[in-house]
């Protein structure tokens, strides 16, 4: 038995190592190319080792402005989305109503809709109502498109908070909104953080929505500017492109790491999602 276990572990380790190597190669290339003075498309020891790539992309046009735009866009949309989701999840989690089931079914249905498919009509609609090329219009749409999933997750997390404490608060005369803020939210903050970070990460990487809805170069977020950078200079400046990719990916990697260290991260999400 123990022999069998040891062999199994060895086989499992070997298989995982192969898969891990396949996943690691592109990542390794990114890191090495970003500090390589003569980066090409192969994984190679940086020669010469340089921080020049970073220095040449760290300027307003290439990095600072797009990153700031991303922050405004994704931060605004995440705040709006999570705020609405918390408010909506409370009655959905706490009360019974004939309307609840149809609403939840619609929400669940909407989480599955391919948002890509509505982008053409969204563009048409934004042109007609004059929201095209505005940050706030894009924020509204990003928030709305992430909302069904956020509500669904938030409701599941809120269902996990026992009602007993709330009932005590109610007896003391607290209004539902006070109860939500003082009792429920403090108890489910890990859930709120998971939803917030997950929403933010998804938006930070979103390319298609800002690519279609924003036109002026000074409003473009990093996801679009990196694409333009890639199309314009992709064939020559691999090192700079890699450096910019590292900078642009850094916030979400850090956020995810913090979340998974403190809260079990994706594993918590996988659990809340479905299992």
């Amino acid at each position, binding site marked *: 038995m123990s022999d069998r276990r040891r062999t*199994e*572990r060895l086989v499992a*380790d070997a*298989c*995982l*190592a192969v*898969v*891990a190597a396949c*996943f690691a190669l*592109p*990542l390794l290339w990114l890191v090495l190319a970003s500090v390589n003075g003569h980066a090409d*498309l*192969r*994984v190679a020891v940086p020669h010469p080792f340089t921080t020049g790539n970073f220095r040449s992309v760290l300027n307003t046009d290439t990095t600072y402005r797009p990153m700031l735009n991303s922050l405004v866009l994704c931060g605004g949309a995440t705040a709006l989305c999570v705020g*609405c989701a918390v*408010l909506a999840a409370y*009655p959905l989690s706490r*009360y*019974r*109503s004939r309307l609840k089931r149809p609403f939840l*079914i619609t929400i*669940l249905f*909407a*989480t*599955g*809709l*391919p948002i*890509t*498919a*509505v*982008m*053409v*009509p*969204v*563009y048409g*609609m934004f042109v007609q109502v004059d929201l095209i090329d505005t940050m706030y219009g894009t924020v*509204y749409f990003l928030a709305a498109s992430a*909302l069904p999933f956020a509500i669904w997750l938030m409701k599941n997390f809120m269902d*996990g908070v*026992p*009602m007993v404490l709330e009932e005590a608060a109610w007896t003391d005369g607290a209004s*539902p909104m006070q109860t939500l803020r003082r009792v429920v939210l403090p108890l489910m903050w890990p859930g709120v953080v998971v939803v917030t970070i997950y929403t933010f*990460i998804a938006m930070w*990487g979103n*390319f*298609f929505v800002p690519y279609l809805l924003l036109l002026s170069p000074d409003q473009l977020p990093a*996801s679009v500017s*990196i694409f333009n950078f*890639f199309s314009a200079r992709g064939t020559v400046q691999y090192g700079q492109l890699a450096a910019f990719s590292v900078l*642009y*990916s850094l916030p*979400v*990697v850090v956020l*995810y790491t913090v979340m998974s260290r403190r809260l079990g991260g*994706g594993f918590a999400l*996988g*659990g*809340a999602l*479905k*299992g």
Partner: protein
Amino acid sequence: MTTSVTTMSRQAQPKGAGPRPSRPSRATRTRRTLVRGLPVLPALVLLALFLAGPIGYCVYYAFTDMRLSGASATNFVGLDNFRHAFAAEGFLNAVWLTLVFTVLSAVVGQNTLGLALAALMRHASKAVRAVTGTLVIAAWVLPEVVAAYLLYAFFRKEGELNAILDALRLPSQNWLYTLPILAVSMANVWRGTAFSMLIYSAALGEVPREIEEAAEVDGAGRWQQLWHVTLPLIRRSIGTNLMLNTLQTLSVFGLIYTMTRGGPGDRSQTLPLYMYEQAFKNSLIGYGTAVALMLLVVGGLFSAVYMRLLRTEV
């Protein structure tokens, strides 16, 4: 999680069903529902304006000849857009490629690899498990365009894949030119497997050890055990995961667009890219929307199936 969700809703129930001394009148109840439902309003408004609105527009535009140039007035053209689509070679090509892309990357790639990883991780040593998990998740957390750029570099003629093939004395080729749909499918596997891995890790974690041990005592090999014991136990997760993978893959745009622009020619042009080209490059908003509507309907069907799988939880 299935079980914990059920227990949660069971916990939540006593409240609503709580002591109800006298049945309030219909009007009072309606008012109470409205007051209690008030917090849903902001979400409802946002969803109605920016999600339901565009879907409504989608249905409407799909039956018109709307153009981007705006030179001519928009006319109602009935089913013309759809007739045109099914006669167009480009559309049929896109449908076929979408099918290939979805089956290869979502159903076969992400789903199977995710399950394999989750299953192997239960037997692997801690260090290997941690490193593999981190790398797979890192690929998932990276922004879409960055992932696309990395895989573009990997599959390029002078890229790393060919370097490895050369080193192994295997024939190399220009992947993005000869097999673009395979390259973008692999890219999608690289980027999306973490999701399946997480779902299956959670699901396998809930399979009671005793059941597996019992099968082992009965002399079942690992494969038999997986096939006859574990997989039937997690079949709901498999269903859910397949649906979610398919839905995510159906709407992949940035990854393919960055890597190949749908090319060379139209050999990696899946439906979202075809829709984009028709609507914006060729300025045929009406026609592009008709394609979008079909994509939306297919997505809607999958979403409905997914919902049925989760139905007991609503």
